């Protein structure tokens, strides 16, 4: 066990810090679309400096660094308050799935533009009637000349309106529960695809709905075997969390510093009840960070992300929600006024226990797949 950085990791980090000091991205614009442009430009800057696809193999255009260096990179980005690259879904999910499950042709076609940000990816898994339950998906793909014709609807897709490619899970059969799905890479720039923004409780529109009306996917864009989409999709979801929780924890710690400042600004620094709630959050966030690094070590040593990622997901949602609650209590009567930072945080955090697998589903995963408890279904 060694929690210090290795000489190689240290060198990577110091070089990155130096580069970041010289190449700070400007502040993120408030407007959503301008923010995406800003994040695209930032991804291009990262790409040009060799910081896109940190842990992707060199042969696929990545930096070939370790997963640990990827995590260090993520933490440094948070520390520098740099935005996530615009094509985060391509980098974190799309690319890794193409690398591990795709064909050579798919790798040749898709990987490079993911890294540069030239082609943004989005994820088409959730549907209005199939949130946690992928077996209830109804978007269908029917075999046709040279490919598949897709009809149906997806929801909660970020970047869909700017995306070139959609990772699509669609029904290709009626037989068994998990054997009737196939994983496609669908071209978003075609007439059969319509994207509508989805406005959230916060008032923002981070997400979209996608409607497919006889959209077409050629055969060569099927990932894995026809009917094996559930397994390919699960791989995608597991890549989603690996290596991100330490950086997420750091982001929360920075926010907690702001919240401590708010408590002091409002003259409430002697309120032991508020201060203990804040301290408990600082501690919970630190354990989330440590769980993240422990999980990452396990991934590095055993190859694939495991279901333990569910622990970090539950912690992340719970902590963010408690931060929002504490902020409201600190604001007290001033909680009436919409605060640009804290009201938004309080509201946005409510989705954290729903998006990317609800906290209930995460507990199911821990119970069934880590603790081997019997399933109800």
């Amino acid at each position, binding site marked *: 066990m060694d929690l210090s950085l290795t000489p190689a990791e240290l060198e990577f980090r110091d070089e990155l810090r130096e580069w970041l000091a010289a190449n700070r991205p400007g502040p993120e614009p408030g407007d959503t679309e301008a923010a995406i442009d800003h994040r695209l430009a930032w991804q291009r800057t990262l790409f040009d400096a060799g910081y896109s696809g940190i842990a992707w193999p060199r042969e696929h255009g990545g930096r070939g660094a370790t997963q640990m260096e990827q995590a260090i990179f993520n933490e440094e980005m948070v520390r520098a308050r740099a935005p996530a690259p615009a094509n985060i879904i391509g980098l974190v999910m799309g690319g890794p799935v193409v690398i591990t499950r795709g064909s050579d042709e798919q790798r040749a076609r898709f990987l490079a533009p993911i890294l540069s940000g030239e082609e943004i990816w989005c994820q088409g898994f959730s549907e209005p009637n*199939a*949130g946690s339950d992928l077996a209830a998906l109804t978007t269908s793909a029917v075999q046709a000349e040279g490919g598949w014709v897709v009809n149906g609807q997806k929801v909660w897709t970020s970047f869909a309106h700017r995306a070139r490619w959609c990772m699509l899970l669609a029904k290709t059969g009626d037989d068994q529960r998990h054997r009737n799905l196939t994983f496609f890479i669908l071209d978003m720039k075609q007439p059969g695809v319509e994207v509508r923004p989805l406005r959230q*409780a916060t008032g923002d529109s981070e997400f979209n709905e996608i409607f497919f009306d006889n959209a077409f996917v050629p055969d060569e864009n099927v990932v894995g075997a026809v009917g094996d989409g559930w397994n390919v999709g699960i791989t995608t979801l597991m890549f989603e969390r690996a290596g991100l929780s330490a950086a997420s924890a750091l982001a929360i710690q920075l926010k907690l510093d702001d919240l401590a400042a708010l408590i002091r600004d409002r003259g409430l620094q002697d309120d032991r009840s508020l201060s203990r709630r804040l301290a408990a959050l600082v501690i919970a966030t630190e354990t989330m960070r440590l769980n993240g690094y422990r999980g990452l070590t396990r991934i590095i040593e055993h190859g694939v992300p495991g279901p333990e990622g569910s622990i970090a997901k539950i912690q992340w949602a719970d902590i963010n*929600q408690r931060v929002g609650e504490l902020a409201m*209590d600190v604001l007290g009567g001033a909680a009436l006024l*919409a605060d640009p930072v804290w009201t938004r945080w309080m*509201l946005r955090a409510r*989705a954290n226990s729903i998006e990317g697998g*609800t906290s209930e589903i995460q507990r199911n995963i821990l119970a069934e797949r880590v603790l081997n408890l019997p399933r109800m279904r």
Partner: protein
Amino acid sequence: MRFDLDDDQRAVRDGIDSLCRSAWSPASARRHGAGDDDAAALWRELVAAGWPGIAVAQAYGGQGLGTVELTLVCETMGRALAPGMFFGNAAVAALVEGAGDDDQRQRWLPGFASGEARGALGSLQPDGTGLALDAEGAAALVLVGGGRAMLVAAGDCQLEPAAGVDLTRRLSSVTLTGGTDELRGDLGTALERVEVALSAELVGVAQRALDLALDQARSRQQFGRPIGAYQAVSHRCADMLLDVESARSAVLAAAWTADHSPQALPFAASVAKVSAAQGAWRVTTASLQVHGGIGFTWEHDCHLLLRRAVASGHLLGSPEAHLDRVAAARGLGGAAAVPTAQ
């Protein structure tokens, strides 16, 4: 002892419920919050039916009913996501009646009772400005803060729209431009009645959130079953019921106490506000969770209820301030306890 509504009280509740159902909807609430004029029509209906004066003494043109009846109206309005005009007017009437002097009562109460010269409630900020709810068109405001209550005629202040957390009531910042008139009577008791009415609104908000969650739990299917069959959902709903019923008991008891046992009101009001504010927060957030993604969309009412729970929960005395007061009565919590009505 009989801890249940009597027939007259049921009639009050059913009357306001049927008015709200015919004249108001979450869509109206959204339009009102966004600046449209729906609420004026609702207010005219309320005035026409005599609701504004329900708890104002008959001597000033009201019906002179009790705080229990007032809270029944407030709960129903909270459930309907009705705007803050009724509550604000009733609150200001209670403050002037309870803590004003004869001149103040004579001048303002008849207008509040008839609804023709509406009152609005606001908080007085440490910097001397105010924040008021649905105050546009009001004849007078009462701003409460720092243990004082200032009566301000509409002509003596300027209102500027402000961005509130709550999207179903309009928030204004208030700048004083003329004289104010302090309410120098027993402000504490009057404020506690207002807190009880506000708590009743929160019970209504929580009840609506529970109703929506139950609909969702029965109809939404996942893994081949309605989600309400899973204990992760059904037990959450049971806890919501516990919160709603506890807050309702606390509010009804505090309302009765306000009229029949005022010496016990401080404790009863704290029990009501803490139960209702914390309960409404827990229930509205739990309802959103039961709904999943759809509950987080702008179009769904979940966030309207949650926002209202946050805003009303922190209006006047915060739950923390009430906890401190209850603790102080037991010699606990130190000297620097937060004042109850900020």
